[in-house]
């Protein structure tokens, strides 16, 4: 279902054509990183720390190097000294020293699965045999695995030289695992809460979870004789890989070419790099191309999941309005600083107009993998906490939970906790869409059945994009772009170009090319690609239109500014009966004779980003004997700006809801006391399957983004924000018990409902 505020009628936008990469993918021909095969290719494997916290006393690789078939062994000693500089990765940033240390540990292994050495050999079997002959002497240290424990003064320190960055740029007196403390403050939260009719005070916890992309990380590198390096890899941003590898290896950026392969999912987890510099060094040492693949266990233990969290909320309501909120958020950063606690702190209150607030965030290091971005990073856990507190508050005052949200909703002009005023946004429209939905109007009846709602917000991103659009003589256009296509962007970009030029979608051929073949593109992340690369595509299309109008004007000997371009027709009229007409197809066909090739180009740093809201509604049934939760019905309303390709927008929403439901019900990193993840496989890391979810209904609420010619807002991330809280609220409604800790697994439910814990 779609509700739309837009006035324009589009020809291509809003239709549902087949994606250009679809046939290759369903026939198995699409080339992924693991498919790379080169003459003389060696197979690289990584040795990982069996300890969650240990000093690396010595590494002896001599026996491994003697194994026949082994061509190279590398450790951190082979990396150049890294610089203490920060690189932006789109939705996260990384310090080069810490990135280098995470890719191959230097002095300490900081989590189980931390890479310590790598081998390249003629077969994977030989490489694994060689790994078993590397002798690492560890001095095992006490581990800290809980975010609250890690904040204690007596906690084992991951880094003895790290101090807390306190408020106002101050530094803590003693070293600490708390990397930073941030605060957002407005009005007077204490006074507002003190004067409230109803106060809800709760603590919430969520567990470390993984994005669960199907394709494991991979990298193939060839260090060429002339010092250039070619890397084939699965990434959300080829240019970002190039930049990170250049920094880690201190190699000129212009000497590195990154070829992005098809990607089997990322969700933020393929923004950082893990294997690429290792493959490159192994190739440099061996003189042969080297391919390194992760196993699923490597992915769980050695890539970047998202933070487990502890959140405390105190919320006061007076006269049906949220009077004030105090919140503390502590997010696990993993082995190095960089949790998304900042984003969590900034998004938590964003759906509402709240004058009095104090939000404190803590970025906390502990002996778990360094977290990476995961779809609206930081926001789902924050919403899990706030939206449950709101649910309790609404119940306490006898208000309908949706009406309560509507009465307190943010809207254009309301200031976020950062002080920035909101542009035109669609939260109220989302809540209203759910209020009006057949689902909400249907009854929810029966024992142990319940209904829950929740809202969420995500900023979305802009950043840099470059595209080239080359017009072919047959009236088609080759769209050369550099944004990893992770969610149908070849289609959504082609559609915007077709719309701009007034040609058919089928006549645009989009290709994602390597870093030597197009201008800089930032990562596919932050829900930015259809928006920002779409903006570049629009401008490249306008560039083609301008060139065609100018050619026509020259030919007709009329001023170019009197020549119109509309729906692929190029026309001039003097209003006195004289007129001329040509077309895009005609200009394309005659270009060789009339001035040569027509190529549209655009490079930009996108402004005008439109944030996105979603409101979700879910019905559940709980089996009180087994604790199993069945999702009976799910409806997600979302402000999508303009849905370029509605099917792919719906797919983004449905996929995010599936991940959110998994996060709510079953997914968690389950560690033993020594920091070993016991469920590092898809058997025991329980993501939902298609049999665990009903059809997820979507309501596309179109409140066009004024910052984009077609009103595009990012759509891929915000739909993972509400599900955790919506499901928890529904379970509370079904059971009469409030679950403040994730996952709300059968174990937790049955133990609580039967008093077993």
């Amino acid at each position, binding site marked *: 279902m779609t509700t739309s505020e837009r006035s324009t009628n589009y020809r291509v936008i809003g239709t549902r054509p087949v994606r250009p990469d679809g046939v290759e993918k369903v026939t198995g021909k699409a080339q992924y990183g693991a498919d790379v095969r080169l003459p003389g290719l060696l197979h690289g494997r990584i040795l990982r720390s069996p300890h969650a916290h240990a000093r690396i006393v010595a590494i002896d690789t001599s026996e491994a190097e003697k194994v026949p078939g082994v061509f190279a062994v590398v450790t951190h000693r082979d990396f150049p000294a890294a610089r203490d500089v920060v690189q932006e990765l789109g939705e996260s940033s990384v310090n080069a020293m810490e990135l280098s240390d995470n890719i191959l540990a230097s002095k300490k292994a900081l989590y189980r699965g931390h890479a310590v050495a790598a081998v390249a050999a003629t077969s994977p079997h030989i490489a694994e045999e060689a790994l078993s002959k590397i002798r690492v002497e560890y001095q095992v240290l006490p581990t800290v695995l809980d975010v609250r424990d890690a904040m204690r003064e007596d906690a084992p320190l991951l880094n003895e030289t790290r101090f807390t960055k306190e408020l106002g740029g101050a530094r803590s007196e003693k070293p600490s695992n708390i990397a930073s403390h941030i605060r957002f403050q407005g009005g007077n939260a204490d006074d507002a809460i003190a004067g409230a009719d109803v106060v809800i005070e709760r603590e919430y916890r969520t567990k470390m979870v993984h994005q669960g992309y199907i394709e494991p990380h991979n990298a193939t590198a060839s260090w060429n004789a002339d010092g250039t390096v070619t890397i084939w890899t699965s990434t959300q941003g080829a240019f970002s890989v190039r930049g990170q590898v250049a920094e880690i290896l201190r190699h000129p950026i212009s000497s590195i070419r990154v070829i992005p392969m098809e990607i089997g999912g990322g969700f933020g987890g393929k923004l950082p790099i893990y294997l690429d510099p290792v493959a490159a060094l192994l190739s440099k040492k061996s003189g042969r191309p080297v391919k390194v693949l992760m196993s699923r266990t490597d992915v769980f233990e050695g890539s970047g999941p998202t933070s487990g969290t502890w959140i405390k909320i105190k919320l006061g309501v007076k006269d049906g309005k949220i009077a004030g909120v105090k919140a503390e958020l502590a997010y696990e950063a993993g082995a190095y600083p960089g949790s998304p606690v900042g984003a969590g702190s900034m998004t938590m209150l964003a759906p509402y107009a709240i004058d009095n607030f104090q939000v404190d965030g803590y970025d906390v290091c502990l002996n778990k993998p360094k977290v990476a971005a995961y779809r609206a990073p930081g926001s789902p856990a924050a919403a899990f906490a706030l939206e449950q507190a709101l649910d309790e508050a609404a119940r306490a005052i006898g208000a309908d939970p949706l009406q309560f949200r509507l009465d307190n909703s943010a809207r254009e002009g309301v200031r976020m906790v950062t002080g920035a005023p909101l542009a035109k946004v669609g939260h109220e429209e989302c809540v209203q869409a759910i209020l009006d939905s057949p689902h909400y109007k249907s009854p929810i009846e029966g024992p142990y059945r319940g209904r829950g709602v929740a809202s969420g917000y995500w900023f979305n991103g802009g950043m840099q994009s470059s595209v080239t659009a080359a017009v072919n003589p047959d009236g088609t256009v080759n769209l050369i772009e550099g944004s990893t296509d992770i969610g149908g962007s070849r289609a959504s970009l082609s559609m915007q170009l077709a719309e701009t030029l007034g040609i058919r979608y089928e006549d645009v051929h989009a290709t994602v090319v390597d870093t030597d073949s197009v201008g800089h593109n930032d990562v596919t992340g932050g829900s930015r690609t259809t928006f920002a690369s779409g903006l570049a595509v629009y401008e490249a299309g306008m560039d083609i239109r301008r060139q065609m109008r100018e050619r026509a004007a020259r030919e007709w000997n009329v001023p170019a500014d009197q020549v119109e371009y509309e729906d692929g027709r190029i026309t001039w009229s003097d209003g006195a009966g004289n007129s001329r007409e040509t077309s895009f197809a005609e200009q394309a066909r005659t270009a060789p004779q009339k001035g040569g090739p027509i190529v549209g180009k655009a490079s930009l740093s996108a402004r005008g980003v439109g944030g996105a809201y979603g409101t979700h509604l879910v019905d559940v049934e709980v089996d009180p004997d*087994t604790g199993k939760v069945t999702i009976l019905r799910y409806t997600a309303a979302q402000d999508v700006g303009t849905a370029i390709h509605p099917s792919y927008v719906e797919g983004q929403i449905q996929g995010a809801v599936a991940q959110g439901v998994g996060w709510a019900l079953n997914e968690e990193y389950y560690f033993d006391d020594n920091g070993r993840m016991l469920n590092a496989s898809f058997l025991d890391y329980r993501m939902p399957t298609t049999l665990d979810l009903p059809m997820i209904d979507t309501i596309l609420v179109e409140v066009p983004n004024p910052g984009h010619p077609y009103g595009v807002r990012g759509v891929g991330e915000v739909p993972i924000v509400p599900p955790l809280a919506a499901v928890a609220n529904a379970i509370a409604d079904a059971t009469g018990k409030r679950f403040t800790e994730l996952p709300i697994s059968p*174990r937790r439910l049955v133990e609580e409902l039967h008093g077993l814990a």
Partner: protein
Amino acid sequence: MESFEYLAPRTLAEAFAALGNGKRSLMLAGGTDVIVQLRENRRSCDQLIDLKHIPELMAVDIRADGGLDIGAAVPLAELYGNRDIARRWPGLVDAASIIGGRAIQSRASFGGNLCNASPAADSSPSLMAHGAVLTIASAGGTRTVPVDEFFAGPGRSVLQPGEVLLRVSIPPQPARSAVFYHRFIPRNEMDIAVASAGVRLVLDESGDRIASARVALGAVAATPIMVPAAAEAVVGQAPVADTFAKAGEAASAAAQPITDMRGSAAQRKHLVSVLTVRAFEHALQRIREGR
């Protein structure tokens, strides 16, 4: 994974010869466990002996006496795909149809599932409820072992070096009886049992009383276990909720589960009671519906 040799003997004699050649052997009756274990370096071998080309291990025989012989390497999909088997032994299909997905079921076998000896294996409680008997062969001859006595611990069975599990035999089932097996998993498919229960319910001639019962539980001890106390609790009683509840209590009392990533001990003790009660209810329904 280290490299190993792959052998595919065509006869039992060839298999025994290979087993006796002094190399470290593992057997493959489907490979859905052993290949994964090799790949994850949880097991290693010099040679992997594929049993799927030996006729005796791939045979299915519905016996004239009403029993059923299943070759140890027969794929699960072949069992539930056989209409006679599906109709007459629904309690086997309960297990065969939930081990992995369709692709796994086209390779995996009861024999492999038993020899892998996971306490959580789905085939075990079902076969134990049926009173299945295993035939084990070696170069020196054959012997039989009731499936209840096959397991020695997690990943361990009474199978000795040089021995091959030949077939699983289901004896003729009593009149007015039915077997039902199910498990609890947090998801709806593609999961491993947190706890499981297989029961056989036998009614007397009147149909009003329970003549006998067998109760087997999975994932609540180091091996799948029989719970005679749960059976004794229902014999001679009417097949009603109160009776089944007593069996559930006995099952819970017999369970000695651990806490791990799949569930807690308290949860499992609770679950086997629920699963036992529900299994009896489903078995009773099968009898009543003449299945």
